[in-house]
């Protein structure tokens, strides 16, 4: 079995905003395929993605992406030509049509030959299923369509690295399903880093998962491994167990508890979400994460 080549190598990334340490010595490697980046609000996910997308430089640490060092101007520009970035809020120009917006970004990505650029814009719009509405102004598009426009611009130039910041936020289940299909296809042969709150997306799409909390990387591994962290820490009971870190009433009327189970508890098979919640749970579970 061959080891996949890493496309991103991050070492001790640190970034501070005032008194807040958004990234605190984050180190990881990414390989081709879809990697999910989980974490609660304020965990530092967007900051990490901005660093990887070369939008901002870290205060300390280094990152080597696709073999290029973004600290060097020439390599940073080369890298920008090979990555696609979909920010959480892309900043649509509402008076642009979908075509105009993607075309504008294509120019900023230095796709300067008009005819070829327009072909590329049509290709990516077709890829995300927006070819029919490309002449519509963005302000007339639904939220789901706008997310697809944002994805389309990220796909310009067929990038090796796709950085997607919460691409499924605000989408209805059907739109999310379509998005998953699309991202799943895109993950074949390229590196996709997907930031999300949705653990279902990670389960459905990701071969790897990273979890960030309070600027620190708490977990890297497969979704199964993340779920496996909660092995023996999920049980159900008729009432909420007072010793549980977290619990909720399920559709069967029983409570699903996460934490350190009491003796004789009726243990359940953990999910990725259980592992994720357990990691967020508190200091007493640090050893689990370790």
């Amino acid at each position, binding site marked *: 079995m061959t080891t996949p080549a890493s496309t991103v190598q991050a070492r001790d990334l640190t970034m501070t905003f005032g008194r807040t340490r958004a990234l605190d010595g984050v180190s990881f490697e990414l390989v081709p395929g879809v990697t999910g980046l989980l974490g609660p609000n304020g965990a530092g996910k967007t900051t990490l993605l901005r660093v990887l997308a070369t939008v901002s430089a870290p205060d300390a640490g280094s990152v080597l992406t696709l073999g290029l060092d973004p600290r060097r101007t020439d390599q940073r520009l080369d890298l920008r030509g090979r990555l696609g970035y979909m920010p959480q809020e892309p900043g649509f120009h509402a008076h642009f049509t979908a075509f105009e917006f993607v075309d504008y970004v294509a120019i900023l990505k230095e796709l*300067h030959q008009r005819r070829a650029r327009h072909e590329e814009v049509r290709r990516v719009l077709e890829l995300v299923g927006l070819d029919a509405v490309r002449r519509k102004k963005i302000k007339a598009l639904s939220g789901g369509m706008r997310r697809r426009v944002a994805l389309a611009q990220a796909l310009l130039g067929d990038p090796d690295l796709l950085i997607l910041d919460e691409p499924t936020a605000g989408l209805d289940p059907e739109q999310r399903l379509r998005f998953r299909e699309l991202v799943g296809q895109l993950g074949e042969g390229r590196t996709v880093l997907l930031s999300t709150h949705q653990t279902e997306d990670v389960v459905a799409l990701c071969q790897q998962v990273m979890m960030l909390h309070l600027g620190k990387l708490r977990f890297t591994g497969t979704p199964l491994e993340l779920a496996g962290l909660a092995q023996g820490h999920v049980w159900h009971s008729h009432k909420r167990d007072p010793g549980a870190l977290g619990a909720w009433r399920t559709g069967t009327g029983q409570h699903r508890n996460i934490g350190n189970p009491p003796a004789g508890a009726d243990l359940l098979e953990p999910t990725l979400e259980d592992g994720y919640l357990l990691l967020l749970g508190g200091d007493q579970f640090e050893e689990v994460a370790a």
Partner: protein
Amino acid sequence: MSTTVEHDDRPPAAGASRALPAGARSRRSMLALTTVESGRLLRHPAVLAATAVSVWLLWRWGKGTAPVLHYADIATQVPLAALAGAALLATNLAVLRSHRDGAVDLYGATRLSLARRTLSHLLSVLPLVALGAILVVADLAWLAGTPGSVGSPHLAEAATGPALIVLGGCLGVLHGRLARSVALAPLVLVALALGSLTVAELYKGGQDQRPWTWLGTLLPAPPFDPPPADLLGRPATWHLVYLLGIAVTVAALALWRSQAHARAPRRAQAAATMALVAALAATTGAAVVQTRPTSPTLAAQRLAVVNNPSAELVCQRRDPAVYCVFPGFEPQIALWEPTVRAVVAAVPPAAAARALPVTVAHRVGLHRLIDEDVLDPTQDNPAPSGDRPGQQPQPGPMVAPVGTAWGRDGPEHALAQARLAANVAARLVAPTRNDGQEPQWSPCHAQAVVALWLAGQASPQAAEGIRQAVTWAAHFETFVMSHDPAPDEPFWSVRAGRFALALLDRPRDQIAQTLWRNWDLVTAPDTTIERLGEVLGIQPPSDTSNPDPQC
């Protein structure tokens, strides 16, 4: 164990040409962005509205005129200032688009640098500048084809309007790079407009006695009839250099700011700095040159025109008049002839034969540009009234002064026609006053009423001009038919004007027959307005304390 992906030999991304060096690719992308931004700028609502305003102003100000092209070129500048203001607002909004819409992160992950994007915004103004230039050229071409058009436009004056658009666009970009608030550009625009209006008013008041006013952006034409181009003395070329120098300075500052923000290569920073220094030097140099006092040669030329205008004019005999015009203004003669003929036709032939040919001569308000202490105080000819300019023309044939502005439409042009008609009529009813005695410039008493009635026969516009002049002078005792009277301009009593208007409201034949029958009486210098009223059987307006102050 992971390994690092090395730089591979990937095919070029669609739309990009990897064969091109990075710099060339970036430059071409910048031009592509310029094309897109230009298109958006030209379609911006503010620009569309300003274009409509500019076109309307150019059309409105040119409509019905017999243009003097070296004044018409100056008149293109204010209409294009509307486009300059729109350029400021629209480029500012375009530069701030990424901030307004929250697309800074998205743009930040793309290859095209902030400095190149700034340069694209600066260059995107050029098609709007071209549009402004097209409007100016079209306007001047249209005016040049108008009957009676004289003179030639000055390239620098014609280019000043487009230069203002360049300046407006560059200011919009700079403010976008300095501050992220969209409220700043409108405030700057208002401040610039108020400042320009203030300086323009000071300029109009002082002309080139206040050369520092040229440090403003927009200076209108002097507020009197256009003189010959070589007497204008506007430092138009240096002012154009000054404006473009400011524009390049502003553009270089915007680039410099972008480069500082985005850690641009040193070579690019050095180029921007050099451009900034060169532009500042050009601006300073032009500012110094354009604010120099009027040259002694030009001052002497102006003085000569004021002291002895007849020496500067070329004359043509075209019966029933002799027309004396500034060289190059000959096409205006054909515009005056119908007015002169109509006035002469209203005079009994025998009386006309005694007075003809009447001399019609150009006069312009150049005395405004001359320091009062330069004017010759030893001039022998006394002023015929207390309200005259201090200088008198050399003795010579009495002329009917006429301005260089002429047209078919509008109150100013009605006044111009009334001026010519009334001044010709004045020389017809009082032809013997320059007989070696002290010149009597203005008809008196009944003469004045008859002359004004004759003038009203020239055309409906002339009659309207007389009506305006009398109405405007309602609170005075006398009036002239010009905002900028020449030293030998006839003055008229308001009472005579009111009586003439009353006569103009009556049937022409009825008045004409009575006047012709009693011509010697009604044009005699001592015949009073009351006596004229008796002859015509019409009660004249009531007397005032000093009904004919100029007599």
